[in-house]
């Protein structure tokens, strides 16, 4: 029980600016094992940037990160901003975080199976045979076992996104990060991807998800965070954020999205 309560991810006071534009103005997030946190907000609110700071695809200017039992070490660079001091640590942490992108970002020169085993074999140095076995099981789970020898270009958007979920799962991530996983899909393909994400939530995976699918966020999240202009405007269980938001802006946003 004690172990269960220990947070998989603690991120505190994240700041990020591009030039004079302040995108993140001190965002904090804590996720316990099994939490599903949805981040919502209008475009430009900083939700994708925040998600990308968690696996350091964007380097935050400031903030403290405790991920997967490790504190991320920072040093102050010549520009006066803080940078992660150990690239190897960042790489190690990233391989424990499964990222799913809006635009899938499968590697087009590899088959679906090769895409999925790439990280286990080359980053985690898992034995190839074991990696293939696991990858095939994951592909079966997302309904793409028959497509394992195909190249990404021959798959639909929904299939590509399911493949990229399998790719992210194949490193046994402690936390899954979803960056608007359905925003680039044709409407009729959204359902099949959400179904896969829902099944992951149901098996108790820790997930952080930036999304515009309000109904879905309400259904699967344990917590919802509403961002506005780089700050947390509202955070709480979905019943509160969607049902009885205290912030006026959040109320407005929910109302605009519900019809």
């Amino acid at each position, binding site marked *: 029980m004690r172990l269960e309560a220990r947070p998989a991810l603690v991120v505190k006071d994240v700041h990020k600016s591009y030039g004079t534009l302040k995108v993140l103005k001190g965002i904090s997030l804590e996720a316990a094992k099994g939490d599903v946190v949805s981040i919502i907000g209008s475009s430009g609110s900083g939700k994708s940037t925040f998600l990308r700071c968690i*696996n350091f*695809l964007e380097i935050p200017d400031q903030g403290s990160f405790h991920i997967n039992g490790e504190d991320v070490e920072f040093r102050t660079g010549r520009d006066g901003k803080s940078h992660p001091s150990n*690239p*190897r640590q960042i*790489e*190690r*942490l*990233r*391989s*424990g*975080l499964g*990222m799913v*992108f809006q*635009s899938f*970002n*499968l*590697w*087009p*020169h590899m088959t679906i199976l090769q895409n999925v085993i*790439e*990280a286990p074999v*080359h*980053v*985690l140095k898992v034995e190839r045979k074991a990696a293939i076995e696991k990858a095939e099981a994951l592909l079966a789970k997302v309904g793409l076992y028959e497509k394992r020898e195909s*190249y990404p*270009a*021959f798959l639909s958007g929904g299939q590509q996104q399911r493949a*990229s979920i399998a*790719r*992210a799962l194949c*490193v046994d991530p402690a936390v899954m990060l979803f960056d608007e996983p359905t925003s680039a899909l044709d409407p009729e393909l959204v359902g099949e991807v959400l179904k896969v994400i829902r099944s992951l939530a149901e098996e108790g995976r820790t997930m952080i998800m930036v999304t515009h699918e309000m109904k879905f966020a309400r259904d699967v999240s344990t917590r919802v965070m509403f961002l506005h202009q780089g700050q947390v405007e509202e955070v709480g269980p979905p019943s509160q954020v969607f049902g009885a938001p205290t912030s006026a802006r959040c109320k407005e946003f929910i109302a605009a999205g519900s019809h």
Partner: protein
Amino acid sequence: MDFSWIIPYRELLLNGALLTCMLLVISVVLGFAIAIFLAIAQVGNNPVLRVAAKSYCTFFRGTPLLIQLWLIYYGLGSYLPYIPGLKGSFLWPLMREGLFFAAVALTLNFAAYQGEILRGTLLAVPKGELEAALAVGMRPSMVLRRIWLPRAIRIGLPTFAGEVILQLKATPIVFSVTVMDLYGAAYKIRQDTLLVYEPLILVAAFYVALTFLITQVFQRLENAVPARR
């Protein structure tokens, strides 16, 4: 049309054809290897390497191959004997041959063009694919080796085919530094037999055939990863 000379001159022709193929293969393979470094240096963060690679490509793309060849053959060639230790080394017999300087010039020239093309295709790889590689924990060198470079090379394949064909047709220039390539053989046959056209026609047919072969090889490479058009 008189092609009766083919039999008596078969050895000269065959050796010439082999030399042409050898120069092509050597300059393309070595030139490509150098081009990878030139391209990476140009898109990399190190300003010294970037300027060096850029200058190299500008110089070799900005001067005629003939002048490069002569600069290397007459210029570099005449200084080599003064480099201590070189004259006694096992490389020396090789370095006295025009063939050596021809291979060097063709390689350096090909590397410059190829380096510039690869620079462009490296930049053409979608950033998201590289982010996906970083996101699974790859270190930058692995991203380059596993994703960035293979993708850039595939994007550039149709252009590379054209470059190799151009390179094939640049090779006869080596005859100007005494290398008896296929064109050199044809030249000698014309001198001996006083035939004007026939040797040239044979040589032209050979270049066409080789071009066809190169096209086929690249077609196969391109088909290795099926793409939907």
